[in-house]
């Protein structure tokens, strides 16, 4: 423990510091993300993001369903729409989605309370989005990293898998 701490040189800042904690809302801050495909200048984008009720959600398990997303995000308010992100070529779920609420406040609740928590054993990440438009459900990135457990050819002790796809249905038993 530091017992010889000198008083801060800018003590007025300490009181302002306390106030900033009350007034500031770092969990709502806009991240670096900007929709490059959408054009429009940065200020306008920022303004739209501050009014948006749509969230971009990533790091979902490839097997997470729309139903699970509805259940989780409904805890923050009525969900208007969920658009599942799809791999461009295979048209299969690939780990992201858009969640649109009827009003902004519900989306803020999701940013405050669901960002960084678990869905389907994955820690999901939410971010403000400018709003879903047809075409945006296709992932732009080359699919990499996550391999669907049911597509694995090898057997992974921790994650199961090993060609369940060959059985022709997903874990919910749906073909």
């Amino acid at each position, binding site marked *: 423990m530091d017992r010889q701490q000198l008083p801060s040189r800018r003590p007025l800042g300490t009181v302002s510091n306390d106030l900033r904690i009350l007034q500031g809302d770092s969990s709502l801050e806009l991240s670096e993300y900007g929709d490059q495909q959408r054009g429009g200048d940065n200020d306008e984008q920022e303004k739209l993001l501050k009014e948006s009720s749509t969230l971009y959600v990533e790091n979902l398990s490839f097997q997470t369903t729309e*139903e699970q997303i509805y259940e989780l995000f409904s805890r923050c308010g009525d969900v208007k729409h969920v658009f599942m992100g799809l791999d461009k070529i295979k048209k299969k779920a690939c780990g992201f989605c858009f969640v649109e609420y009827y009003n902004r406040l519900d989306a803020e609740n999701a940013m405050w*309370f669901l960002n960084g928590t678990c869905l389907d054993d994955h820690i999901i990440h939410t971010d403000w989005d400018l709003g879903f438009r047809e075409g945006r459900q296709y992932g732009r990135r080359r699919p990499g990293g996550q391999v669907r457990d049911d597509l694995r050819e090898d057997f992974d002790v921790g994650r199961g898998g090993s060609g369940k796809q060959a059985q022709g249905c997903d874990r919910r038993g749906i073909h």
Partner: protein
Amino acid sequence: CKVGEKSACSLESNLEGLAGVLEADLPNYKSKILRLLCTVARLLPEKLTIYTTLVGLLNARNYNFGGEFVEAMIRQLKESLKANNYNEAVYLVRFLSDLVNCHVIAAPSMVAMFENFVSVTQEEDVPQVRRDWYVYAFLSSLPWVGKELYEKKDAEMDRIFANTESYLKRRQKTHVPMLQVWTAEKPHPQEEYLDCLWAQIQKLKKDRWQERHILRPYLAFDSILCEALQHNLPPFTPPPHTEDSVYPMPRVIFRMFDYTDDPEGPVMPGSHSVERFVIEENLHCIIKSHWKERKTCAAQLVSYPGKNKIPLNYHIVEVIFAELFQLPAPPHIDVMYTTLLIELCKLQPGSLPQVLAQATEMLYMRLDTMNTTCVDRFINWFSHHLSNFQFRWSWEDWSDCLTQDPESPKPKFVREVLEKCMRLSYHQRILDIVPPTFSALCPANPTCIYKYGDESSNSLPGHSVALCLAVAFKSKATNDEIFSILKDVPNPNQEDDDDEGFSFNPLKIEVFVQTLLHLAAKSFSHSFSALAKFHEVFKTLAESDEGKLHVLRVMFEVWRNHPQMIAVLVDKMIRTQIVDCAAVANWIFSSELSRDFTRLFVWEILHSTIRKMNKHVLKIQKELEEAKEKLARQHKRRSDDDDRSSDRKDGALEEQIERLQEKVESAQSEQKNLFLVIFQRFIMILT
């Protein structure tokens, strides 16, 4: 560094340094400093004594500043009361009373203010909650300043106490059973909040105001502070009651732990000790200050000063559940508490999860007497919490529920938890996480039930039409094509049949809804698309009230294994006006649902329906208000500008207002009708 976040030694030197700098800044930044300190007093009550000490030091150096600050606080207090910010006003009153300890305010003037507060109990024709608030503001300041006030003015204080006591004896407490989380008195009575506070203050008085929990930095500065000149509070008359005054609601104090629950650690202060009050107040204040930022909130909670002398984790868990289970509604959205608890588990992985598990166990044991709304919140919390920890739980500990009547609280609770867990994962996962003995409590596999699906359905009426429809749907038929297929469906209510064939025909609804929902069963999106694409057919078939009811019935038959799907379909159907809220209410109370009446998904749907109705009414009322304001602004501009053309603009706006007025009236009448249906059907069931 933040004031108050270091060890006591450097807190004092911090404060001294800060006072020095602020004093130097006063000539240039006085109003800014005044504003800052008032805001801190209002919004950071958990840091109360730190900032009162600061003000004390400033007052000792600059008497005028002290006077101006007190005036500013009184102004702020009046504003808060006028604006119905009663919770903030309590913090301001407490701040003022602690300023007595810092030699900024003279004790007799504080006593006089409290005399005026308690005299509100003599007012007639005012809501009881108004009188309650003034008594609460007085009593809840005493842990901080009771000693000083009693030493200086004991006769006056005794009089105020006598008045308070007689008020507390005669006030109404009919609200208490409504607000209690458990109906049982054991193991902890759920006390009315003023009764509890009174008991705590009485005990404090009996202990000669000895209070050891509150951090009092001003004690270290006693030699400086007692040299300071004090100010008198101006006489304070409580603002009168107006029509717009809205006072805080009464509460019941939630208790789930006592000293027996943590035998190893520090002793938990008793339920009538003032320490318990102060700790709970401070923890509630921390949550109130930081609820939107769960990491900060958790950090602030676990670094509560004086934490080594109390079983802090138990207090934190109790305070959080107190808020989550508060009736009628928690102070903040339910999901906040879930993620706050998760954050706390992350911060204190060696201690908090065990306390939380103990709490969960206790809540389970007391399910029999728990208010149903609270059980619902418990279920939602627990299922969401488990989903963040791979659904790990010692289900065998709850095997006692397996031998009980399935309709009794414990097995019902487990069933509902598993159902919610399934919604957050998938069916097989649930079967995997519980022991085989629990399989009877596991939810059904949420599959679609299509009555025309197998060979035995050949003999069902409408079977051939169903097949026809299926083909049509698959080949992307239009609404018109569907209509023409449906035309051939005979009406079992033959007497009412007319040539158009669009009067209520349950068989038409049956084949259409069954087949369409079956084909769209793959996901919510598929089902929503189906509703959207064939909206016209739906609207026509469900035109009459009986039609609406039958659509809901058939939908329920198809999806009775998948309550979540039922809920989202009902929601969509209301929003797209295929059915109305009253139809949903009638359906919920119908005989088809009587078997599932006590399942939570039914109430989820009913509550959601009521909420949508209320939101709809509010929305249109708001539109009307905005249009009226726009018109008023236009009129004002016209009288300023003398512009002829705005006469025409007026006309359009006035028409819009008239239309909105009609819309509001019709929405309000629909809302009234919804409640009437619910109350009437309830009465029918209960009698």
